[in-house]
């Protein structure tokens, strides 16, 4: 599946922040700079919803998360805003991992088993009766055993308390993920984070740039970066959450781009065509060496 998935993505241009950034002057003659923002980009597609401003006025927009993000995130409401050298994109009421029911059977079974072991934890007397089955259960969830271990009974109880007491289908909720840029600086803030129903104050507040959510051992497979910052000449982009799989960006949430103080004269942002992708022409075919008998 992973190979198919990665192959399916090959050839797709990575769309981060391709919106044109220019500067203009406001009514008082002070120089202004453009900016842009979008809510979510999936699989290299242009971010949606998107707004762009030439700096003379503030543009705002909103929408909901694309359905394709299903297994990763859902339910979020997106708000984007772009003005004079400042832009923001926010996702509120985000639920992560909500599509657990759609996971492959081995993952689902593994988590169900984990829940069962946790439920029986109260009856266990000996340390080994607690830790061995729990760690075995953790190891049965593909990928989980390499990053999670429960070394003590206290850790086991804490882990299980959170797991059992909550709706497993909503692994984590985020009140707000907000990205903001001003000139050449950017911030990403999280608020009201709950993991398995338990508030996580440690995860709230401003997130340091380039915060990696996955351990380095998984980097070759997948990376989730919070507060990814991309300086690009006069432009500066900050992405709230960036998911890369196999070295390719597959999703970006809450991206904001600010223009620099000096740039070319005003260029009007072209209105989005009804079908923007159609402006891109299909590729000229590359002949393939194969045998396919035809009627001659």
């Amino acid at each position, binding site marked *: 599946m992973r190979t198919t998935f990665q192959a399916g993505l090959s050839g797709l241009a990575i769309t981060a922040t391709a919106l044109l950034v220019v500067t203009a002057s406001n009514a008082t003659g002070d120089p202004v700079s453009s900016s842009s923002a979008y809510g979510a980009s999936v699989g290299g597609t242009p971010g949606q919803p998107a707004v762009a401003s030439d700096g003379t006025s503030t543009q705002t927009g909103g929408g909901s998360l694309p359905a394709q993000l*299903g297994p990763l995130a859902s339910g979020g409401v997106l708000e984007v805003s772009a003005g004079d050298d400042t832009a923001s994109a926010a996702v509120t009421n985000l639920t*992560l*991992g909500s599509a657990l029911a759609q996971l492959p059977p081995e993952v689902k079974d593994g988590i169900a088993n984990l829940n069962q072991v946790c439920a029986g934890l109260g009856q266990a007397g000996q340390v080994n009766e607690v830790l061995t089955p729990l760690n075995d259960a953790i190891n049965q969830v593909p990928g989980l055993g390499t990053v999670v271990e429960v070394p003590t009974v206290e850790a086991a109880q804490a882990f299980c308390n959170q797991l059992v007491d909550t709706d497993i289908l909503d*692994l984590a909720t985020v009140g707000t993920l907000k990205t903001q840029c001003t000139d050449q600086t950017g911030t990403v803030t999280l608020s009201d984070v709950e993991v398995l129903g338990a508030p*996580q104050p440690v995860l709230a507040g401003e997130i340091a740039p380039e915060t990696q959510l996955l351990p380095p051992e998984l980097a070759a497979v997948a990376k989730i970066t919070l507060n990814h910052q991309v300086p690009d000449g006069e432009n500066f982009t900050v992405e709230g959450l960036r998911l890369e799989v196999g070295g390719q960006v597959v999703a970006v949430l809450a991206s904001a781009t600010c223009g620099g103080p000096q740039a070319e004269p005003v260029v009007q942002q072209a209105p989005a065509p009804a079908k923007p992708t159609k402006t891109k022409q299909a590729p000229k075919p590359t002949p393939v060496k194969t045998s396919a008998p*035809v*009627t001659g």
Partner: protein
Amino acid sequence: MTDRQTTDAAGSRSNAVLLLVVVVAVIAVLTSWGNQPEERADVDLTKLVASTTKAKLPQAPLDPDPMAATDGTVVHPRRVLPVYAAPGRKPFAKITPTQMGDTWLPVIDQQEGWTQVLLPSRPNGSIGWLRTAQLVERYTPYVVRVHTGSRRMQLFRDGKTLGEWTVAVGAPGTPTPTGRTFLLGSIVDEKQDFSPLILPLGTHSATLDTYGGGPGTVAFHGWPNTSVFGKAISHGCIRVPADALDQLSQVPLGTLVIIDQQ
């Protein structure tokens, strides 16, 4: 946040649970990215026939308007996708991202979340619906028209004629099938040395179930002897002059080819 060596117990628990979340999320994305829930629930892709030039799809709906032009939209499936007779119905086939090179199909209709395409399988004129979310959408400015009666072929770009040639078409017993189809592939086939390049179409001979070991696929290709042009002489294929083949080689796959009897 991923420092597992921290001695802070609360921090460790947060880390462990957070990692559970993200690992599960990544596994979910890796294994089921882009699938629609109903697809996962209902569709076993391994049991579906791939819509290729070799396939016969008796359940496929037929093109309701076989002489109509389209707006030039073509699509490429990002992964193996189910093909549906109608949005929300049970799928009757699947389409793969590559068959003769990348798969590109012409779009004949679109509804919210769904895209209707021409298919390259028998019966001629087979069509089906795909989920738009899993398609790369592009545009081709070209259209090719073949007139079997006058043995002429026209290549249009943005509605303007780029070229017009006299070609060879199917003989009376093995006529070139009419209707709209599309450029399916661009191949170099050492076993078929009559042309340096062969451009198979999505349509098939109506009179030959098989030909040369293949499923009777109709194609554009060149021919060593120019005396054939202007004649109804082939087994269904459209033999074109070298200049025409050269220009056709630039045309994106998925481009509409409309064949009539004029």
